[in-house]
């Protein structure tokens, strides 16, 4: 166990090491996305300038914006801005944040373009709320089913966990989203489904996402609880006269929570970056919908900004998860 000053030194070293690794990861992700965007077909300048713009105007705009420079040159320039907290301006979106179509090439009266940072800052809280609620729903289902399944290996609770996980993972999220919207919103009128006018609009998409991630949590819990219950320390604890509930709660679950925690970290990070389909179906104004529109419109700065933010979130969440896991099980070294 790291205690006192040693613990603080450990934390500081840990943070420095992991943050340094994180910076490298974010840098590599940024470079990869940056390069890929520039080699795939589809000219963003054509979208910005409009279909009627002659080729020489397109070339002129692209040159003025530095889009014809070598990719490494563009990347260094871009990262220079990022290091100063400037993610650039959207190629397409006006400051109002609306998803827009192309305008005419000789139109110098377009509204000011939106800052990428503002667009992400406006939409990320919605996705965060959705991800947290989805995680809460998933845990509400996964904890009892997974733990009970792990405590009764080979029995019906274990089979229930297995069947439920198999069922949930087999449901395509776009299909489930539409069916749930039809049943809970259209037929029963219990929940609103489309857009966002308040907290209630988060519930249906969160249920769909919860169904998507619950099988992983259930499986992880079932396996790790069952595994821990077979360990010697559990048998010894019973011999020491510790009650069954305490053995399960304080010993088996505590140790089983480490893999669960890691999985939660990964799933949560994936939720932040991977809610595309669900947000699109429910027209939920989060990062996912923003990403889809940015990709469709070849909005390079926005795609890059979202990639940097989500990869940074991934790194930070995993650092937190590892820190918490270390405090639960001090034997772990990260």
């Amino acid at each position: 166990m790291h205690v006192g000053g040693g613990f603080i030194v450990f934390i500081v070293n840990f943070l420095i090491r992991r943050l340094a690794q994180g910076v490298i990861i974010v840098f590599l992700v940024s470079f990869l996305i940056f390069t890929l965007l520039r080699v795939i077909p589809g000219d963003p300048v054509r979208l910005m300038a409009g279909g009627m713009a002659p080729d020489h105007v397109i070339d002129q705009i692209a040159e003025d914006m530095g889009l014809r420079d070598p990719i490494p040159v563009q990347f260094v320039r871009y990262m220079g801005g990022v290091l100063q907290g400037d993610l650039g301006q959207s190629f397409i979106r006006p400051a109002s944040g609306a998803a827009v179509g192309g305008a005419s090439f000789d139109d110098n009266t377009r509204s000011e373009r939106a800052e990428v940072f503002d667009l992400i800052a406006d939409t990320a809280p919605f996705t965060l709320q959705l991800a947290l609620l989805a995680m809460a729903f998933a845990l509400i289902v996964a904890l009892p089913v997974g733990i009970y399944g792990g405590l009764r290996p080979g029995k019906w609770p274990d089979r229930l966990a297995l069947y439920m996980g198999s069922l949930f993972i087999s449901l395509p999220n776009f299909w489930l989203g539409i069916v749930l919207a039809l049943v809970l919103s259209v037929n029963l009128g219990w929940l609103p489904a489309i857009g966002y006018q308040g907290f209630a609009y988060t519930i249906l998409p969160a249920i769909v996402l919860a169904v998507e991630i619950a099988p992983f949590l259930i499986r992880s819990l079932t396996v790790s609880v069952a595994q821990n219950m077979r360990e010697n320390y559990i048998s010894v604890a019973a011999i020491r006269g510790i009650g069954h509930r305490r053995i399960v709660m304080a010993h088996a679950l505590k140790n089983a929570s480490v893999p669960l925690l890691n999985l939660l970290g990964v799933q949560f990070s994936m939720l932040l970056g991977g809610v595309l389909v669900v947000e699109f179906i429910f027209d939920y104004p989060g990062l996912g919908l923003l990403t889809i529109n940015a990709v469709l419109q070849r909005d390079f700065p926005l795609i890059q900004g979202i990639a940097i933010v989500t990869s940074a979130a991934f790194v930070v969440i995993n650092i937190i998860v590892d820190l918490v896991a270390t405090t639960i099980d001090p034997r772990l070294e990260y």
Partner: protein
Amino acid sequence: MITRRSLLASVGAAAGMTQIDPRFFISSAYAQTTEPIIFLSAENITGNWDPTAHTTLSQKNIEAYVMGYLSRTPMRPENPDETNMELAESITLLDGFRLEIKLRPGVKFHDGEPFAAKDVKATFEYGAQPDRPAQWYPGPTDSFEVTTPDDMTVIVDTSKGGYAASLFIFLASYLPMMSAKDIAAGPNGPLSQRLNGTGPFRFVEQRGNDTVLEAYDEYFMGAPKVPGVNYSFVGDATTRILSMLNGQASIIERLEPEQIETLTGKPNITLSKMVSVENKYLWFRCSKPPFDNPLLRKAACHAIDREIIYEVLGESGSPSKNFISPIKFGYIDLDNYPEYDPEECQRLLAEAGYPNGEGLPELEYITSVGFYPKTKEYGEVITALLQEQGFPVTLNVMEVAAWNENLYDREGGGPGHMIDCGWSTGSPEPDLVLRTHFHSSSKRITGLVDPDIDALLDKERSASTLEERRRIIQEELTPMLADRAPALSLFTSVLVHAMRSDLQGLFLYPDGAIDASKAAFV
């Protein structure tokens, strides 16, 4: 084992649950019947509110709520020429080159400025500038003169341009009247930042993908009954229909045929179907080989059986045999419109030097998916029919943004060899289609440069009376277009809207614009 403590804890928790108001978490989707009209649009807007800066249909539809028009034309098939005066009290031809517009007094813009003749003059002169992307006008600003003898009278004189002043009659129902003050502030002024009109709803803000409008109590034809309109871009058709079904949306647009079936018979949903002002076209890239050869274009037209396309479209398309919609001025079923005729196709292919299609290069046919109904499906039909006659065609289906990127003509010819697109303009004026696409000064998509067609377009524009103009369009211009075939008009779109049955009093124009000034939830 149940202990006394755990039992009490459970009872306490159960009692606590009864105190939680579930409405905090769950609000019924049907609970908002007194809210503004929620319109879900299939198309996004541009980043510029200047009405002359774009040709985007969804934004034109937003303008219809906010802006005022000198007149409006309902454009119903039974009476396509009907005109109702709005900001104008009368529009009179003084002679072939002079038009007098008498304005309605006492009208104010939403910013409080009174509407007067100077605003009409400024709108006409600004909108006709050659650099304005919308290009609505029969000629550039220096081809006509607008004078204002008094605050309520406007005279348009087209003698400098040599074309008839009557062209402004139909345009009057299409041009949103802008404030002279806004126009004077220049292209980077308030004109591009927000809408300022005299219509029934006032522009409040653009909030993400939602355009927020509120009722303008001083609207000159009576204050609207609904508090406002929220016009939202929702890109996914399934999402729009789910919103309609659960009562969140008041109106949705551009229904696919199977969606019409889904909604038909629902007691709380009403469907509106109307022949629109939009024709859908197969445009040929006429400025590059091989479709720079009219024989080959015509051969391709004779390879296409439009009856199959109508079957694919179901209720979303209506047959027509001209390059303009049947509700446009000058429409007539053309006797020489190219029909499905494989023998004639083969004859023309041979005459063009490509017997059975031999020697033709690989041809690319570009279409979109996600906006217009059934484009991919009928695109596959057209591709198969062309291949059957020997055209080596490949269909390239693109998402809307990429398709839009590839739509227009450019130096050396636009991308691909054929492209699918509709053209919709909310006025009976045929030149908004014909001149825009087939005159060498514009040639938006085709890249067509044909002096004979140019001459006839100029001739009909310069006709001294509407009747003479109609005759030239019907007997000379459109028959020549059918013969030279720079495009094939496939069908006229049927605009299908679904709306809540309790929303009554809406008037839908055939370009998709809506007059909601008398609408109410009943």
